[in-house]
């Protein structure tokens, strides 16, 4: 697995979380989170609800600032990368007044691209996510899975080095989720992006993560980091190994998940 990552690495962009801690008023949400997101690596972050997973992701991409610690980038993004650190959101965040193609064009319009370059990129990412025939569809006409495909196409269009994915499959039904997981594996094999993949779904974490960061309940701290040493494309064939890891993760999380369930929400 290591080799698989290193071959793609060269000196591409890496993301470093350095002793991140955060509090809202008196409530500590996160405490002492440090890890490194290597080039071409997918790090899954799991934890009980309310442990600050999504908050952590907002820090990683610079949408919010932590009260303690900092996030650093290392290395250089290639010049073709328009938005090196790019998010994929749980609720898709598509503009309802723009078509699928229009939503992708939106994030290209602020860059110096000619009309033809822009439409070429839009057509390319639509093709890569198998959406070409839906280019002119409104978001309301698309199923949840299709909407998230559009959002992924939009993310790809800016040639990201690092994808920050906030429960990207949680709003979808389980069949669609399985399809999209396979698609994500395919995509990763072609693009070799690195990703921080926040989820509460253990199966997704085990299927997509090279490493899995397990957070504790509030305040979220790193309880354990588990490496999954099966290449992504072979994981479908290693069901037993994966489910053993899933069992281990569940054993780690069970008590905290129960406590988190009984807490008042204030995130």
């Amino acid at each position, binding site marked *: 697995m290591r080799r698989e990552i290193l071959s793609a690495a060269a000196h591409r962009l890496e993301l470093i979380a350095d002793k991140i801690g955060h509090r809202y008023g008196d409530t500590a949400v996160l405490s002492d989170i440090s890890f490194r997101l290597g080039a071409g690596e997918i790090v899954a972050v799991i934890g009980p609800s309310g442990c600050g997973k999504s908050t952590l992701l907002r820090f990683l991409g610079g*949408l919010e600032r932590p009260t303690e610690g900092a996030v650093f980038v290392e290395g250089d993004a290639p010049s073709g990368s328009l938005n090196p650190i790019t998010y994929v959101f749980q609720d898709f*965040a598509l503009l309802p007044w723009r078509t699928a193609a229009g939503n992708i064009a939106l994030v290209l319009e602020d860059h110096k691209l000619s009309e033809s370059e822009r439409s070429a990129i839009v057509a390319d990412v639509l093709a890569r996510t198998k959406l070409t025939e839906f280019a002119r569809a409104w978001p309301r006409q698309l199923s949840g899975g299709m909407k998230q495909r559009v959002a992924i196409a939009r993310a790809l269009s800016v040639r990201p080095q690092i994808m920050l994915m906030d429960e990207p499959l949680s709003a979808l039904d389980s069949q669609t989720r399985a399809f999209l997981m396979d698609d994500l594996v395919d995509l990763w094999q072609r693009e070799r992006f690195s990703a921080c993949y926040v989820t509460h779904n253990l199966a997704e974490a085990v299927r997509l993560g090279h490493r899995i960061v397990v957070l504790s309940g509030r305040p979220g701290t790193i309880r354990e980091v588990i490496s999954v040493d099966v290449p992504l494309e072979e994981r479908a064939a290693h069901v037993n190994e994966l489910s053993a890891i899933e069992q281990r993760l569940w054993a780690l999380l069970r008590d905290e998940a129960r406590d988190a369930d009984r807490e008042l929400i204030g995130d």
Partner: protein
Amino acid sequence: MKRGMLIGSLSVTDLSAPGTAAPGTKEKTARRRPVPFRGGSFRHRPIVFAGPLLFIAIFVLWEVGSRSGFIDAKALPAPSEALAALGDLVETGMLWRHLGASLSRLVTGWTIGTACGIAVGLAIGLFALARASLSPLVSALFPIPKIALLPLFVIWFGIGEGSKVATIVFGTFFPTVIATYGGVDNVDRTLIRMGQSFGLSWRSIVRKIILPGALPAILSGARISASIGIVLLVAAEMIGAEYGLGAYVLMAGSLFALDQLIAGVAMLSVIGLCVAWLIGRAERHLLDYRT
């Protein structure tokens, strides 16, 4: 009938089978009947002819009442008389004079008021300082009846068109401000965060995310402000107006020419209907992504 048949495919004995020890289960208590229907109501379905039909019914009753003497002609003239008054207006060509004067005031005033209202509403929605300073001011000025300020406007803007347009400008400005910043506040935050995460410029976020997101609220504000504009038009034409539907109605009223009064009021209604229809068209065009 259909519901009864659906249940009919499950036999009652099947349902009661698992509870073998259920005491007192007799053949007679197991009478089969349809589940009472409790849905329905609270749903809208389009009934196209109801609106026009009610209008026609009212006019017919009114006309019949007037002709039979049930309605005193001094208290309320028959619709046919009002129609005749309207016919006179058309014949003498005065209708277009009055209508032209009123429409130009309404359109100018409403356009300026709405444009300024959207600008100020956006500022309140976007900038903390504008919100902190302007929104109390808007709340303080909105409830003032603009008609009460008409004498002031006459002094400030002259007795001619200025004061009339100013009344409509002020009347339409405040509801638009409130509708606009309410719309901006309601724009989905995740969309704005998405824009930021892709590095869109501030201008792009405002123009491509916030403005279209607030548009439904701005348009429903426009509906309200247009009606307020028509109300204020009549008030503004009370002072120093030679032409205009408001002036016509007021003159008819002071002469107790009730047929002309009804004719003028009907024209104001028609303007209101046309404006509502135009805004409906605009909504359908601008918000076509919704349906």
